[in-house]
């Protein structure tokens, strides 16, 4: 058993050696296609991060008129919280707004004096409503547009956000479909090239295969070297791709650090955390492709 395995490995290394340049070219192409796949993965992570950054900043701020009591505002808050699309409602009561204002202008005696003179709190309460999903803001806004709220709400700001949100969404979709398109084209080319390379490799060994068959080698012994070669191929392509990806990330990371100042987006971290899954899936995909190609390519010659 072990003996056969060692022989299979030796044969496959000889095969690899015999079609060295074809193998190198194919692995290079595989790496290129895997890189586009990884570009899509990375772009996905980046745009996800960008959206999170903006989404966290997005809310609908609702400024209530000063005469509206805290109780009424809290009631609105509770109603809002019951809605499924609402994630969170931050509440700043009248006093809070006043205190904040005072705090901000504590060095300005004129303002403190005029506030004192006014006698009452000129500020209204504020609610900052955030949604689970940016697509849901229009719904919340529509809800707040109801007549009973119109009277107590002084102002709400969301128009700009809606634009930002829709822009981000479009951008995200475009990036993703572009990336998928490129990856798809490379994927198709890679599949065709792999199938062809495997067929050539099997064809160059048809003499050996026929001899093996006629002296009574089992079909698994004939297939073995090609399967092992598929394993080597997939392993080499995945490892080299991972190396290039990490090298690339190492150079790109500083730019991201500048781009997302307060949110730390570590692509390297993201990749490391998901390395097993990301590269594992790529390895399995390539191995599946090469092994399947060799299965069908060898089958033709096994019929003898």
């Amino acid at each position, binding site marked *: 058993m072990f003996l*056969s395995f060692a022989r299979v490995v030796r044969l496959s290394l000889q095969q690899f050696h015999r079609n060295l340049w074809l193998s190198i070219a194919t692995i290079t192409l595989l790496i290129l296609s895997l890189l586009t796949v990884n570009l899509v993965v990375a772009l996905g992570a980046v745009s996800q991060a960008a959206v999170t950054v903006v989404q966290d900043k997005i809310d609908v701020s609702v400024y209530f008129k000063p005469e509206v009591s805290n109780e009424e505002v809290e009631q609105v808050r509770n109603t809002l919280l019951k809605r499924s699309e609402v994630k969170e409602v931050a509440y700043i009561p009248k006093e809070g707004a006043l205190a904040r204002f005072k705090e901000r202008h504590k060095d300005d005696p004129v303002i403190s004096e005029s506030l004192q003179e006014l006698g009452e709190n000129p500020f209204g309460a504020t609610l900052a409503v955030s949604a689970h999903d940016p697509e849901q803001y229009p719904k919340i806004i529509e809800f707040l547009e109801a007549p009973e709220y119109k009277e107590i709400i002084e102002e709400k700001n969301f128009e700009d956000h809606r634009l930002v949100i829709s822009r981000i969404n479009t951008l995200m979709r475009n990036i993703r479909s572009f990336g998928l398109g490129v990856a798809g084209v490379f994927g198709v080319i890679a599949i065709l090239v792999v199938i062809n390379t495997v067929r050539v490799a099997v064809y160059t060994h048809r003499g050996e295969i026929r001899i093996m068959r*006629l002296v009574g080698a089992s079909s698994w012994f004939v297939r073995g070297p090609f399967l092992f070669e598929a394993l080597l191929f997939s392993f080499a392509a995945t490892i080299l791709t991972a190396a290039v990806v990490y090298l690339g990330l190492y150079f790109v990371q500083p730019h991201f650090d500048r781009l997302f100042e307060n949110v730390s987006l570590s692509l390297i971290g993201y990749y490391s955390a998901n390395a097993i899954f990301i590269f594992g899936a790529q390895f399995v995909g390539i191995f599946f492709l090469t092994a399947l190609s060799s299965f069908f390519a060898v089958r033709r010659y096994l019929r003898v």
Partner: protein
Amino acid sequence: MINLHNVTKMYSEDAVALKNISFAVKSGEFVSIVGQSGTGKSTIIKILIAEERPTKGQVEIGDWDITRIRAGDIPMLRRQIGVVFQDLKLLPAMTAYENIAFALEVVGALPRRIKEVVPQVLRIVGLEDKAHRYPLQLSGGEQQRVVIARALVHRPKIFLADEPTGNLDALNTREIIDILKKINSFGTTVVLVTHNREVVNQLRRRVITLNGGEIMSDHENGKYVL
């Protein structure tokens, strides 16, 4: 040893290679099969090693009915039959020794057995002194002898040779036939397909003559009659 009952082989509707062929070969016999080109000689060899299946009829090797042999059993059948085809060459990147060893490696033979068997079969074909030459460093006749040696590694009970002397001159042909006789003298059943009139006439063994996919004659001590 070998039994064909009413075997018909059609490659397609209009390509009938064998028509209702029956013959039996006893253990230890030396049989020549002759006939014009395209009369189905190679087809018989291919059916015997289960490379092709008969369209009709029954084929037995020993006590084994291989008419509808399972694909997984074919390797076991072939380890009991040595076969030489004209187009079955040596692997150019391996020496004579390695070519023969390869046939043992791929069926999982132990290194000890390989070391024992390869020199033995090289001795049978008289090439022990050229074991480490590459095929290109051997003459056509010597290459063919290595091919025969390779077919002997499993010590087969049956040895099939399809035109083993095809491209060889008279002297090399003689040598090959002498080797086949030697193999036969060990008790191995030999089936030889040939075009060569001299070979058949000098052998004075059984000759089956095919014509148009049918057996035209079958004589002990036969002659080349075409």
